[in-house]
């Protein structure tokens, strides 16, 4: 059995034979350009991340949350990265790598649309044609991101199979790749997929924790007690954890979407959550062995989350491994608590987070007010993986529908806005 990209029992390369040569080519390119900085690849990558992407992002002390929870809460501001989420680190890295590899075309899947927009931006920046696959459901709930991809010159291909979310979009992108692999690079959007993707995507995102670790040491002179991030596929998570893995005194908490419930409906093949790390079982999906939401036969379940970017039945194999090793603590937060946390951060700190990100703050709240045994310690660093502009309509709608306390009254503006919008 191959040992490339194995993380304990997880990882591997479960892809159609037609793709294997591309995977090998990519593995070779990853080793040369990323790991050995051949042709100055990593230098150019870092330079572009800085000038185009806006790195480094700040580590901000959160005045109000710190006071509220009687902890020192620090925010790693990936929401300030160009495009509004951590996603650009990876998208820019991969599109640049594709260029170094002589590929002529970029494809990618997207759930929340953040990876799609990041890829579209990177592709425009580096002058590469780009096509994005996106489920119909996600297209409807992340409309601004669809516009942004189109504006950046990318084609957006709606995926109508299944429930029309991320899982189906990945499958569809793999199909495209299988047909066009010679000239096309598939920019996977998280630390999922066949090796070398999980390692490579992690490496592109590791800059988050490289900066954050240095920043917190510069600020406090010490390592934090806990480091937290939300986890869908887990790319912002591993990016935030990577440089802390070898600091055993630092707790690493990965917060997944608890959706409406952790209960599973086997009959319907639906998990009303995306809490793969907490509730998933080992299996093979989208090219890797990892934890999955699946029924007892091994059929993949439809996951659910109010946040499109967490709505995925799989998770990165490395993260699954780190959970098994007890190095990463799996946690989850349900839709309502995430919405509340969304409003709390918006109102308290003047930062409107992505709904994905809000899950991490939901857990901070629950832990700090004593809903969990772990109280996260005195100094907590949280990754603000993205901003919430893409989620405004969803939040307004869901806050009203669920009658979330923390949300401001919106009716007046839903009306005005709606009529404005209708004049389109």
């Amino acid at each position, binding site marked *: 059995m191959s040992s490339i990209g194995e993380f304990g029992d997880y990882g591997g390369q479960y892809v159609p034979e037609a793709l294997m*040569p591309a995977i090998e080519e990519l593995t070779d390119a990853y080793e040369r350009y990323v790991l050995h900085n051949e042709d100055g690849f990593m230098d150019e990558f870092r330079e572009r991340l800085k000038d185009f992407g806006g790195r480094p992002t700040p580590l901000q002390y959160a005045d109000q949350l710190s006071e509220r929870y009687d902890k020192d809460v620090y925010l790693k501001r990936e929401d300030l990265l160009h495009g509004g989420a951590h996603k650009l680190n990876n998208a820019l890295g991969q599109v640049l790598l594709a260029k170094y590899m002589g590929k002529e075309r970029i494809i990618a899947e997207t759930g929340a649309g953040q990876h799609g927009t990041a890829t579209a931006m990177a592709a425009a920046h580096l002058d590469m044609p780009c096509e994005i696959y996106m489920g119909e459901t996600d297209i409807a709930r992340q409309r601004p991101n669809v516009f942004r991809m189109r504006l950046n010159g990318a084609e957006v291909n709606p995926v109508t*199979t299944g429930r029309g979310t991320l899982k189906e979009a990945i499958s569809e992108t793999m*199909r495209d790749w299988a047909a066009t692999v010679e000239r096309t690079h598939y920019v996977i959007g998280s630390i999922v997929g066949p090796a070398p993707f999980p390692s490579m995507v992690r490496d592109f995102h590791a800059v988050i924790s490289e900066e954050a670790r240095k920043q917190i040491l510069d600020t406090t002179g010490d390592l934090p007690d806990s480091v937290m991030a939300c986890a869908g596929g887990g790319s912002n998570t591993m990016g935030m954890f990577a440089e802390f893995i070898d600091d055993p005194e630092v707790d690493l908490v990965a917060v997944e979407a608890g959706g409406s419930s952790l209960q599973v409906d086997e009959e319907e093949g639906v998990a009303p959550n995306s809490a793969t790390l907490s509730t998933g079982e080992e299996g*093979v999906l989208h090219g890797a062995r990892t934890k999955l939401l699946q029924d007892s036969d*091994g059929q993949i379940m439809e996951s659910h989350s109010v946040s499109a970017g967490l709505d995925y039945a799989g998770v990165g194999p490395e993260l699954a491994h780190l959970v098994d090793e007890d190095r990463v603590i799996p946690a989850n937060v349900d839709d309502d608590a995430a919405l509340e946390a969304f409003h709390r951060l918006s109102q308290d700190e003047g930062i409107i987070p992505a709904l994905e990100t809000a899950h991490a703050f939901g857990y901070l709240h629950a832990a700090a007010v004593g809903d969990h045994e772990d109280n996260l310690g005195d100094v907590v660093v949280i990754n603000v993986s993205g901003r919430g502009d893409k989620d405004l309509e969803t939040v307004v709608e869901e806050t009203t529908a669920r009658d979330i306390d923390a949300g401001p009254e919106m009716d007046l503006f839903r009306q005005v806005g709606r009529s404005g919008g209708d004049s389109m």
Partner: protein
Amino acid sequence: MSLDRNFTDEPAFVPYLVAGDPTYEESLEYVEALARGGADIVELGLPFSEPIAEGSTIQQAIVRALDGGMTPNRYFEFVEDLTVEVPLVCMTYYNLVYQYGPSDGPASFVERAAQAGIEGLVIPDLPAEEADQLREACDEHGLDLVFIVAPTTTDERLERIREQVSGYVYVQARLGTTGAREDLSDHTAETLERIGEWTVPKAVGFGIKTGEHAQRIVDAGADGIIVGSALVNLVAEGDDEDISTAETATRIENTASELKAGALAGREQPPEQQ
């Protein structure tokens, strides 16, 4: 006894259908129709929820079969219910093989498959590198493990596959997912040449739709042809247009005969324009 026995006398015709598409009962009829139409081996799909290697035709068939309640256990019952003589190969994705209980790993699946009468497996998302466990189980239970060779497969990889493959090798005629096409790629002849000295029979699939396609492929050196979407399309039409099961079965049988005849013709004489 290996599947390669079915390639000895004449070019083999290897059709594919999804078990349980659109219903258990109808599907039984259709597989029998394939046998009547001259199938030498049947690749019988066990539907998986994320069929990343399939084009839309087979994807939809898989959805129909899943909606119809097909599961791995039902699949094995299905195989047992079939009365055909022709050998059956199970085509599915690795997660279903891997999950099948009670033991961890692929062994339980292979054991049950063997018991039901399956003679080989094709797992499109399982490259040779990841296949050791499954290979072992197949050896233990006397199943063939078929691998796919793609136009992109490198020489180095060909060697790896050659070590693992048994029964026949599935030569992917062109890049992309499964699906019936008008055009036929040039890669076929090239690939066949590259694996010319392999002893395992070479069956070509992906995009074969007509007898004439079949003829050309065999003429190019294939030991057999694999046809999926063109047949699945008939099932879909039968379902969509409320054609009777008997009528659809007849159409399947006729198309199968045509494809088989094409394959035979390919061995006998070159097609007119090539």
